[in-house]
């Protein structure tokens, strides 16, 4: 199959790759770039395990083609921490036991980053609504809600 040349910037590094036009973005990240922190949980963009930030927006990378991301700036879970210091959202999930098996967690983290950028002080119902593109089978969501609140508090404190 004909290859298409693309350039993406992922977690601050630039990559130029020849890819099949049908290659999904999530497979570019995982199989070509080796960033396996982004997971695939379903075929139908239902579960959100593959959520990444593309141009600052949380998107499901299983529902985008890699060629659609040509020229884009992407952040994956591997790019959240800086110099080994965890992002406030990662800290929040850790402190509040917002994860169990961890498979859905990268997607929740990325969706939460977007949520807190848009709404630094969300109520519980707003959190549940904002994360409704992500499924978790382990936690029953309550500790995830607590984790987002915890992270929101940390980020507000850092901003003030």
């Amino acid at each position: 199959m004909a290859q298409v040349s693309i350039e993406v910037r992922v977690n601050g590094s630039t990559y130029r790759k020849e890819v099949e036009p049908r290659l999904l973005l999530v497979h570019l990240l995982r199989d070509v770039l080796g960033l396996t922190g982004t997971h695939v949980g379903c075929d139908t963009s239902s579960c959100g395990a593959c959520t990444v930030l593309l141009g600052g927006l949380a998107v499901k990378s299983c529902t985008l083609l890699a060629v659609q991301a040509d020229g884009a700036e992407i952040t994956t879970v591997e790019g959240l921490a800086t110099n080994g210091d965890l992002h406030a959202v990662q800290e929040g999930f850790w402190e509040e036991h917002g994860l169990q098996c961890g498979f859905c967690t990268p997607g929740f983290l990325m969706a939460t980053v977007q949520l807190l950028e848009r709404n630094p002080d969300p109520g519980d119902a707003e959190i549940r609504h904002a994360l409704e593109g992500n499924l978790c089978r382990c936690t029953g969501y309550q500790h995830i809600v607590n984790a987002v609140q915890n992270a929101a508090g940390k980020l507000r404190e850092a901003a003030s």
Partner: protein
Amino acid sequence: MATKFFGTPVKRREDRRLLTGGSQYTDDLQLTGMVHAAIVRSPHAHARIRSVDVEAARSAPGVVAVFTGKDMEGVAGIPTAWLIPDSDLKTTDHPALARDRVRYVGDGVAVVLAEDRYQAEDAAQLVQVDYEILDAVADQVKAVEEGAPQVHDDAPGNRCFLFNTIQGGDLDQAFEDADDVLSFRTTNHRMIPSAIEPRGCVAQYNAASGELTLRMTSQNPHIHRLLLSIVLGVPEHKVRIVTPEIGGGFGSKIAVYADEAVMAFCAMQTGRTVKWVETRRENFQCTTHGRDHVTDVEAAYTNEGKILGLRFKTWANMGAYVSTAAPGVPTWLYGLMLSGVYDVPAVGLEVVGVFTHTTPVDACRGAGRPEATYLLERIVDLVAQRVGLDPVEIRRLNFIGKEKFPHAVAPGVIYDSGDYDAALDRLLEMVDYEAFRSEQAEAREQGRYLGIGLSTYVEICGLGPSSIVGSTGFQGGLWESSVVRVHPTGKVTVMTGANPHGQGEETTFAQVVGDVLGVDIDDVELVHGDTDLVPMGMGTYGSRATAVGGIAAFKAAQKVVEKASKIAAHQLEAREEDLEFEDGRFQVKGTDQGMSFQDVALQAYLAWNLPQGLEPGLEAQSFYDPSNFVFPFGAHACIVEVDAETGQTDIVRYVAVDDCGEVINPLIVDGQIHGGIAFGVAQALYEHAQYDESGQLLTGSMMDYAVPKPGQMPSFELDRTVTPSPVNPLGLKGIGEAGSIGSTAAVANAVADALSPFGIDHVEMPFTPQRVWQAIQQA
């Protein structure tokens, strides 16, 4: 033992890697020379395979090999490991790839290996299978009728087994003495476990050494090693199973599936490393489902509301093949819990296990116990209504009193400990039950339908004493192993045969062992999920890892201290009985003479000066076989509001008081309870695996099968009581499944209570708006 860590909400030690993308799940593995597999699956529920043409697929770009069922004729069938006695169990042949007949949608027919996954999927489309479509049956009640399509030639009438071993007390007398009998038929519908990580494996075979390595999604790697060794004919010591990070199981990663055997076969045939990860569609079609009972209930009771006897007849849908643990789930795990928290003198159960043209059924979070609890909790509410008792009163009237423990129940097990009134007391206090009843009455006057459902449950877990599980036909012991290995620097590796996949045992076991050895939990690392590193073990399921595996680790650590104490006494020139060991230090009582645990560890390995006859080194092993199961319990309350116009059910409050004995880490226990409750609530309100008449799975994707979203779950209000188990030295019970066992019934009772003004006393699950609306219309 000083308890510095036990009982504290330590942050999980496994989380950093999970939060940073630093973990490796099976699908993350990229091994040199790896090829990718795609399985060609039957689109029909029942068909004869006339021919399979793989020529086009073989010559497609990137294809390395294609195999069909005929190629795998030398490979043994997929086995069943719970051979319930006296039941005429038919396990039937289960080839890894179908040869002449397919028996459910998703049954594997051929496998394609290609250089990448896209090519493998492309080529799989080119495999031409000529099917002669046959009649199918998906419903277990229809499947046992005369003239129903037959799933297996050697299982006449589609009967997989007939189980009637659980008969306790004098049932005939109970029904004779009763003032009245409640009879009804109800369904506990099929669920799909839906771990967010799909199943998968990476198979490697070294032809020179004869070693087969499978990296795979498994809750129990040693069981997989044993059974796959038998299936593939590779000696057990040449098979290595490694479980990378596992993204949830909920029972669905216990079974031995055809797919892993197929991948091992492919690796052995081609010499290539073979990777296969199922799509979500495959997960829904081919990974085991759970529940799926139809039950006729008869309850004998007095006018005072005392339940005298319970008779159950259940048709359990087993699917097209008998999965690994499947026969034990709708029989023992279900039947032994059929008197629940109640002192019922007589209980009888008959179960017909039925073959259908559907995905095989096996353990699914709770496995049999949610089904039992759902029936009992519906029974007590319905009897309460008939005799004019409040749901609280009938429970108190029938509870097994706390003074009666240990207590032998009619189905045939001995409950270890319990205080059911205490849990219910606390629950009612949290709910403010009386205030709710007033609020409910006021709401009804305004045309708003609030309902409260109670569920008081007990579960059998901590599986389990090997001699007892052996007598149930389980083909193994259910002890657990652990090795505590202290390194020369005093750092500690703990190996466990349990295989955590989200439950947090890398933290809780470190808490237990850290306390025994007096070392920091960050100096304790848990190793699990590698059959070459860890001694034979039985894995994680049945809420057993902590109550069995945790105790094995505890006992192994105690043995380490015993040896360390001998070394310390020798080095300090003191008698052992003059030493005290506290906070990681051996001290000669009443002196300033002492040495740290770390110093002792170093001396154990230097071996320059050890007591005569004592071997060097500092490690110990334990195989712990519990003397009994453990029986966690609790009281849950769900408050719902039903919109009579739309049939929509909303949870207003969910309150739960659970008792899992002593608690190692309250944060983790709360997380387990939350997840369990969500699982059970989801069954009651949303999830329903449905087949059409022809055996097509209608809920074959996450767009059609309603795994709940964050906004569909309430916040949970939790508390606990602590009734230690006398079975093990730490007083532990289990908590992984408890929430799912208690919660489905709480929602069911709440919906029935909300609809009582319409004269409705029972609605079948799941309580979708359509179903509830129809019930109101028909009332």
